[in-house]
């Protein structure tokens, strides 16, 4: 039981990283970014390129991937989302499907569709108080936890974090408060890219790397964000942890291949029963 809880928390933390990214972009840009999965994939492959093809250590490659993906995200914002600023959110979400196609298939074009892996040695799992813990899990735990703390600090304790929350709360009022929306949006993309590429590398270390790896996370991500309340990044973390634990517990009664169905069920239930998410009251709308 404890083992299941542990595995659930770790896989929940893995979902939490991009879930926070999704939540931030959802709040500030006001549309659900369906390309979030392909951002994870893209980040994982940038790291793969540096790690396997160039031969730097995975740690350095992960850093380069964050920078690279941030540049890609800013480019996409400039080319796609900026010309569509102010469009209704259906237009933006259809556009994000277009972005998803481009990103995922650029990966296929450059790297092929075969399953790949990083150049790391896999250590044997540790045993600790009857629990089986492997190094990847410890790494995921530490990295995800650190990332959460950093994002929390930026959001809650810095002027730019306040500005981000302000734009997602009331963009017009943020304008008259002297906050430059494009700067805030750029910062959100950089943070989102860093979170997604980190998640991509961690997923790649723990499992496999293929062009579909990110798409498989799209449902759990949306489930986590909806569960936590849209535009509420801290709620998304909670949502992600719940998804992770419930998925892990579901494998006791369901075939593992149906893991993702948990997200589907959660999305349906939340939308039916608590469309404002778990965290109490409806988010005060603009």
């Amino acid at each position: 039981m404890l083992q299941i809880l542990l595995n659930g928390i770790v896989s929940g933390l893995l979902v939490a990283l991009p879930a926070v990214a999704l939540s931030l972009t959802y709040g500030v840009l006001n549309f659900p970014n369906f390309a979030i999965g392909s951002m994870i994939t893209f980040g994982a492959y940038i790291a793969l390129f540096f790690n396997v093809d160039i031969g730097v250590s995975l740690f350095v490659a992960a850093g380069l991937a964050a920078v690279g993906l941030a540049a890609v995200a800013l480019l996409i914002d400039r080319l796609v989302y900026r010309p569509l600023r102010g469009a209704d959110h259906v237009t933006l979400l259809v556009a994000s499907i277009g972005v998803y196609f481009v990103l995922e298939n650029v990966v296929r074009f450059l790297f092929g569709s075969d399953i790949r892996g990083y150049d790391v040695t896999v250590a044997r799992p540790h045993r600790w108080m009857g629990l089986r813990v492997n190094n990847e899990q410890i790494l995921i735990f530490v990295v995800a936890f650190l990332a959460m703390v950093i994002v929390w600090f930026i959001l809650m304790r810095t002027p730019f974090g306040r500005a981000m929350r302000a734009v997602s709360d009331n963009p017009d009022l943020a304008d008259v408060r002297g906050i430059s929306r494009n700067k805030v949006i750029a910062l959100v993309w950089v943070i989102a890219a860093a979170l997604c590429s980190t998640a991509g590398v961690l997923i790649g270390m723990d499992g496999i790397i293929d062009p579909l790896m990110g798409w498989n996370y799209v449902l759990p991500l949306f489930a986590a964000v909806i569960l936590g309340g849209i535009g509420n990044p801290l709620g998304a973390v909670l949502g992600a942890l719940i998804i992770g634990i419930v998925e892990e517990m579901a494998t006791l009664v369901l075939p593992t291949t149906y893991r993702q169905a948990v997200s589907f069920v959660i999305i349906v239930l939340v939308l039916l029963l608590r469309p404002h998410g778990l965290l109490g009251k409806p988010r005060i709308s603009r």
Partner: protein
Amino acid sequence: MIGYLTAILVVVLISALVALALNLQWGQAGMVNFGIFGFFAATSYVAALSSLAGYPLLISLVLAILTGVALSALVALVSARLREDYFAIATLAFAEAVRLFLLNETWLTGGANGLPGIPRPLSAYSSGQSYELLFFVMALVLAAICFAFAEALTKSPFGRVLRALREDDLVAATLGKHVLSFRIWAFSAGGAILGVAGYLHSSYFGYIDPTQFGAFVTAYAFMAVIAGGRGSNTGLLFGAVSVMVLLEGTRFLKDLMPFLDAGQAASLRLILIGAGLILLLIYKPQGFFREHRLRVDKGDTK
């Protein structure tokens, strides 16, 4: 050559039907069906399974349509009151759930291997190239019926209410509860058309597997609807045909660039689809056939 031409035309017709369904659901009723490929997959599989079980054309077709209607009604019943973006997420989640089911219930669906050897309808009457032609004519007749159905719905008082709902919250507010049933009907009507599309798809190709139904189906359909001018059925015809002809045209990329391998050519095609969709949204959000749509709308509102 005739064979190739009819093959392309059948594919175009099937995609046009999917787009026609989206045009009813999204174009008319404002319901952003991002999971349209899931409904399409479900009807295709039902058609395939019933054909494999030996049922004749008509029964398989009706079963596929019923599946489309029932699933659409169910999904709409649950989520019709949701905001646009939530609705998109909910339908996409549904489609992914369908995909999971198709992949994992191997006893029924063949899993990742799919279902081969689906009997071809009307094959008793003809064979070879003339069969291709026969199938195309059948597809054309079915598509024409669907188109007439969609057009009749659009022109009917029902269609006018739908558009009013889409454009004006005040109307929605005054209609109150009825809004929900209007939306469920519209979504189910789209589901019926997807049933026809699914039947044609599985019986034409004779083989289906889960990879044929991905988010790219959603992308095609949105491209066609946007290119045709959202809400207009006639515009949609042009939109669907031109988008599909363009997309089929990109198959020749491989001949133009022989240095690409098959996988690269395929991904280049999908990159172009994504880029095309984005360019369309930025430069032609009203579609290429705007004037036409305006005329249709004016005719309606007198």
